[in-house]
C-alpha cells in the first residue's frame, strides 16, 4: 500500500521536474526582449484607447513611438503638450509641431431653418436613415439628429441640444480623437485648428447642391455665392462645388467674411460682440 503512494509521489514529481525543465529551456530559447521604454511610454499615455492617434489603442501607439526613428508625425490628441514632451524626453526624440484641434459641427439647420417635409419612423440611427433617404428635412447633407456622434465620444465632449436637434461640442473636453468624425455617416463633423479663447469662424454647412436648391431646404445653407471668397484678405476661403470652405490654417479671424454671408451660414463663435457692424450684419 505504502509502495503505491511512494511510487506515485516519485512519478508525479519526476514528471513535474521534467516539465519544468522543458518550460525553462523553452522560455530561455524563445525569450522576447521587449524594450522597457514601451512600458514607460504607455504609462504616460492617457489609456483612453480612443484611436485618435491612428493606432489601435495606447499600447500600439507606445510601440510605434519607441520603434520609429522620427516621431514628428506621431501625436496623441488626448495628451497635453507637457505629457508629450515627457514622452519625447524618455525616448530622446524630437516632437513635431502639432496644432491643437477641436471638433466642429458643420450644420446649423435647426428645425426653424429646416422644416420637416416628411416623417421618418424607422430605426433610430443616423447611419440607417442616411442609407435610406435624404432625411426628414430634405437636405441630403444635413444633420439627422439621432446623435451617433454623441455615442461615439469617450470624453463627454459632444451633446445633442434638444432645442436645435444638433450636436454641440464642449471645446474644453474635446480631445480631437476623431471618433465623432468617423461615426457621422454624413461627414458633418470636422477637426479644425483650435484658436485662442476657443474662437472660431467656419462655414456651418456642407451642402454641395446648387444655391437655389440648397436654400429651398434650409435657410442657413451655403449657397455658393462667393461673396466671402472675394472679401477675404488672406485667401483662406475657397469655393468648390457650390460650397465655401474656410481653411483654419490660413484664417486670421479678421471677421470680414461673416457679415457678407447672405444666408448667415458663416458662424463666429466666442468673439466679443461687434459694436458698429452689428447693424449691417442683419
Amino acid at each position, binding site marked *: 500500500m505504502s509502495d503505491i503512494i511512494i511510487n506515485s509521489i516519485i512519478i508525479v514529481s519526476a514528471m513535474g521536474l521534467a516539465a519544468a525543465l522543458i518550460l525553462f529551456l523553452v522560455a530561455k530559447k524563445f525569450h522576447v526582449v521587449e524594450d522597457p521604454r514601451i512600458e514607460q511610454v504607455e504609462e504616460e499615455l492617457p489609456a483612453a484607447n480612443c484611436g485618435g492617434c491612428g493606432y489601435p489603442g495606447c499600447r500600439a501607439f507606445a510601440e510605434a513611438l519607441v520603434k520609429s526613428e522620427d516621431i514628428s508625425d506621431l501625436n496623441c490628441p488626448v495628451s497635453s503638450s507637457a505629457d508629450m514632451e515627457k514622452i519625447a524626453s524618455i525616448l530622446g526624440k524630437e516632437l513635431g509641431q502639432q496644432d491643437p484641434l477641436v471638433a466642429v459641427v458643420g450644420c446649423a439647420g435647426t428645425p426653424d431653418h429646416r422644416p420637416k417635409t416628411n*416623417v421618418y419612423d424607422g430605426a433610430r*440611427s443616423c*447611419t*440607417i436613415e442616411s442609407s435610406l433617404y435624404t432625411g426628414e428635412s430634405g437636405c*441630403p447633407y444635413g444633420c439627422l439628429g439621432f446623435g451617433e456622434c454623441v455615442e461615439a465620444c469617450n470624453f463627454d465632449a459632444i451633446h445633442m441640444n434638444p432645442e436645435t436637434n444638433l450636436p454641440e461640442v464642449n471645446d474644453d473636453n474635446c480631445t480631437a480623437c476623431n471618433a465623432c468624425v468617423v461615426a457621422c455617416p454624413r461627414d458633418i463633423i470636422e477637426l479644425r485648428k483650435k484658436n485662442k479663447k476657443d474662437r472660431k469662424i467656419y462655414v456651418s454647412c456642407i451642402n454641395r447642391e446648387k444655391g437655389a436648391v440648397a436654400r429651398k431646404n434650409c435657410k442657413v445653407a451655403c449657397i455658393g455665392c462667393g461673396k466671402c471668397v472675394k472679401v477675404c484678405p488672406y485667401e483662406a476661403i475657397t469655393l468648390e462645388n457650390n460650397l465655401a470652405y474656410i481653411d483654419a490654417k490660413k484664417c486670421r479671424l479678421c471677421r470680414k467674411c461673416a457679415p457678407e454671408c447672405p444666408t448667415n451660414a458663416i458662424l463666429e463663435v466666442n468673439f466679443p460682440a461687434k459694436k458698429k457692424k452689428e447693424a449691417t450684419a442683419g
Partner: protein
Amino acid sequence: MIKTFPRGGIHPPEDKISAGSPIRELPLPKTVNIPAGQHLGAQADPLVKKGDKVKTGQLIAKSSGFVSANIHSSVTGTVAKVDLIMDSSGYRRMTISINSEKDEWLEGIDTSNTLRKNITAKKEEIIEKTREAGIVGLGGATFPTHIKLSVPKGKKAEVLIINGAECEPCLTSDHRLMLERGEELMVGIRLIMTALGVNKAVIGIENNKPDAISHLQSLIGDYPEIEVQPLTVKYPQGAEKQLIKAITGREVPSGKLPIEVGAVVHNAGTAFAVYEAVQKKKPLIERYVTVTGKNLSTPSNFLVRIGTPVAELIEAAGGLPEGTGKVVNGGPMMGKALNSLDVPVTKGTSGILVIPEEKSFRKPALNCIRCAKCVSICPMGLEPYLLRAASEHKKWDMVEAERGMDCMECGSCSYICPSGIPLLDFIRLGKSTVSKIIRSRKQ
C-alpha cells in the same frame, strides 16, 4: 400538386384589389425624367445633351461596364436637360429629362400587337439583343438580364424557372400580364430557353391566381417543354432561392448563385420584355405598373413609359385620395416610401401603393421579448433578433458569422415582430457594412 418552400414564410393580407382591372395604356406624359442608373451595377453613360432631338426607342445612355444596362428614350421630343435630379430616396442622381412632343418610334421597331411566334434567332443573337434593349430583371431587383442569360463556363443550366408568383401583397401587374399577354410570354420563355440551352421550363404561380394558372395551362399545348406549377400563397414565394426550393426541391448553397443547382430564375415580366426585344426589336421603354390602394377610386394596372412621374399614374387611377399618409414604390413588404410624387417610374417600379395615414406609421419599437417569432418565420433560416443586436452593437464579425449576408431583405421579421422592432433596418446596416469589409479584404 401544389408546392411551396418548406422553411419559414408569412401570409400577410393579400389585398389584390386591382386584379380584375385590365391593363390600360397611360397617356404619353409631357416630360419624362429617365435616370441613368435604373439597374443594379454601374450607372449608364448619357449619350445625349441638352437640345438634342430623340425618337422613341433611341439609345440615350450606354451601358458602362459588365454589370450595367443601356437606357433608351421612352418618348419622341427634345432633351430638356441632363442633370442631377431627385430620385425616390431624395438624393440627386444623373437623369435625362426629355420634353415629349409626339410618339415617333425609331425605324425598325415593330409596334403592332401581332404575335410573332416563329423563333429564328440563335443563342448569341438573343443575348446580344437583350443586352442592346437594356433589359433588366423586372421583378424589382433590376439585375441586367443578359448576364443571367449567359451561363458561365463550366456550369450547366438544367431548368428555367419563370417567376409568376407575385407574392407581394397588393401587386397585380404580373398577374394581368400572364392573363393578357400569355402567348407572348410563352414565346419569351422559349427564347430564354434557347439562350440558356435548357429543355425544360416551369412557370411558378401562386394559387390565388387561378385564372392565370388555367389560362397558361390552356396555352401549353403548343409548348410541351413548358410546365405550369401552382404554388401555395406564402410570402416570399417569389424570392429566387425559395422558388427554386419550392419547384425543384434543390437548395442553393449559402453565398452561391442558383446556377450552382442548375436553375435559372427569370420574372414573367422579364420574359415578356425578352420577347419584345428579340421578336419586335423593341427596347425596354415601358413596363406594367400596378397603382393601388384602398382609398383610391380606381385601382388599376397601367402600361407606363419609363420616366413618367408617379403623380400622373396616381392621377390616372382617380387622383390622390384625401388623408393619404404614404406613397410606396413597390409592394408593401419590400417597397420604399417616396419622398415626392415627381419622381419617375423606372425599370424596377412594379407598383405604386397609396396608403392612408392611419396605416402609414410603424408602432413605436419596444424591447425584444425573445418570442423567437422572427426565427421561426425567416425563410433563410437566420436569427433576425441576433443579427439586429449584433448590428446595433457594431459586432460586424458576428453579423458575418451568423450568415447575415444570406438575408434577402424580405422584411418578414419586421412584419411579424410583436414588439415592432425594425429588425430589417438593422440587418441591412449590418449587411452593407459587412459587404464593405469583405470588399476591402479582397483588395
